[in-house]
């Protein structure tokens, strides 16, 4: 740098400073024109790349593809309560409770027989890490991800989504029915109960 002459350096500084102003001025004179917010699958996606990048979020949103993978949704009618999703979940955000149905629950939309009542199917979206493993293991494809991504809440409890099929009253009735059938038809060889393992009497 010091090799150049004094006045040459001054001239060079002025030309380079002028270049700098020439770079920024055209951007200023676009006066903050907003771009159309297009989805990535649209053809004109790159058409106005030189306009302002700001998305005025709640008023403007970038359109999402339909297979966006954000909030979980469960179609209770199609669930066979196999518990696979709850077991594969890496953060344990799915809680399932089920018991044997006493009546015919019918079939899911893909033809699987439903044999279990589903009183509790809770997903804690505050814990969810959006890995999507639960949707892959679901045998009836009743657990899916939707493109809803903006669902902030003031209360953390509101993040627990309840997809259970039974109200507490219905659950109590059904469980009572189940108890009744258990006592009504005794399995073969049932007599006075014997412990399977003999436990040592406590000292």
């Amino acid at each position, binding site marked *: 740098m010091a090799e150049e002459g004094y006045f040459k350096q*001054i001239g060079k500084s002025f030309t380079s400073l002028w270049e700098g102003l020439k770079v*920024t001025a055209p*951007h*200023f004179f*676009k006066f903050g024109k907003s771009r159309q917010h297009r989805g990535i699958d649209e053809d004109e996606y790159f058409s106005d790349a030189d*306009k302002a*990048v*700001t998305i005025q979020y709640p008023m403007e949103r970038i359109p999402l593809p339909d297979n966006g993978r954000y909030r979980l949704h469960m179609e209770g009618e199609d669930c066979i309560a196999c518990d696979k999703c709850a077991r594969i979940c890496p953060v344990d955000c799915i809680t399932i409770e089920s018991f044997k149905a006493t009546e015919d629950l019918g079939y899911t939309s893909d033809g699987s027989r439903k044999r279990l009542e589903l009183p509790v199917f809770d997903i804690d979206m505050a814990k969810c890490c959006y890995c999507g493993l639960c949707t892959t293991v679901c045998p009836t494809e009743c657990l899916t991800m939707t493109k809803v991504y903006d669902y902030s809440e003031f209360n953390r409890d509101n993040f627990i989504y309840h997809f259970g099929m039974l109200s507490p009253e219905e659950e109590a009735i059904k469980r009572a029915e189940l108890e009744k059938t258990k006592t009504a038809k005794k399995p073969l060889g049932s007599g006075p109960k014997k412990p399977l393992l003999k436990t040592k009497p406590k000292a």
Partner: protein
Amino acid sequence: MFQLLSIPANWLIQAGLSLGLVAVYTLLAVYAERKVSAFIQDRLGPMETGPFGIFQTFADVLKLVVKELIVPSAANRVMFVLAPAIIFISVFAAFGALPLSAEPAETAMNVGLLYILAVLSIDIMGLLMAGWGSNNKYALLGSARSVAQIISYEVPTSLALLSAIMMFGTLNMQEIAIDQGIYSSEKLQLLGIWDTAAIGGLTSWAIVRYPHLLIAFLVYLIAGLAECNRAPFDLPEAESELVSGYHVEYGGFRFALMMLSEYGKMLIVGIIASIIFLGAWNTPLPNIGAAELATWTSGAPGTIAGTLWGSFWLLFKSLFIVFIFIWVRWAYPRIRVDQLMTLCWKYLTPAGFALFLISGVWKLIEVYLMLNV
């Protein structure tokens, strides 16, 4: 004799006008800064508060004014509290001597420019007090840098202004202003040959009549930028290294005062540059034959039209310079400390001396011609 109770009403009007001008200008300048930076970076800037976010800075100032004033327990209380006041007063006092138009006549001090430069440098004391009184290493480093920078750049600033002052032969801002327009009673000579007093407009501006002042104008702009501690000379604030420099411990209204004076100083640099170099409150449009553009777009000193046209042209020019400052801030990266000092002592100061010499020789030739022709 100066008596406290007999302050002329005009002085109070000038003070009130200046305060209003500084306050409104700062609100809009901060908004402009944010918008210009946003547009340059392909963003939109504030959009939520009011139409196009125009009330954003009002909301910000409201928040600052409502906030609690905290003095850190380790700080030197007296210095800490006094510093913003001194900074603000020194900047505000300078506005008193700036002629926004031919009226009010109180701005016609015979030591005008000297007074402004002197009062503005009291600001350095405030910066040092703020940095030292905060008892914070970042604040101290920031203020040390700031003071070193401002004192260094005072030299090229003064030299550039001095070379212009020599051509006018007066320190009175009002006389300098009148000397650059159609209301001048003297001969105004373009390049020493052509009398343009009747034509006015651009042709009577200092940088056109004395072309070497164009370089002085550039020197003054660069040095003024450094004196305002603005990018690319914002080493005292250096967000990435010094948090925010000397005002890191300040909050609420005290911070607002410092912000106000920073932007106020920018406007002062703009106004001084327009008064000394760009024809002050005179119109840029010249009289061309029958189309008397200069006469149409200005009013005689003392009339209401004169005041309005004068204020309009002066503010137009100074705000344009402020806009250049903002533009420059978002175009250039910050320079290093050694580059800062190199620029000041190896480039701007010698240029200032050279201009000083040219002005002196020019005046000598003028006097020689006057005596011999």
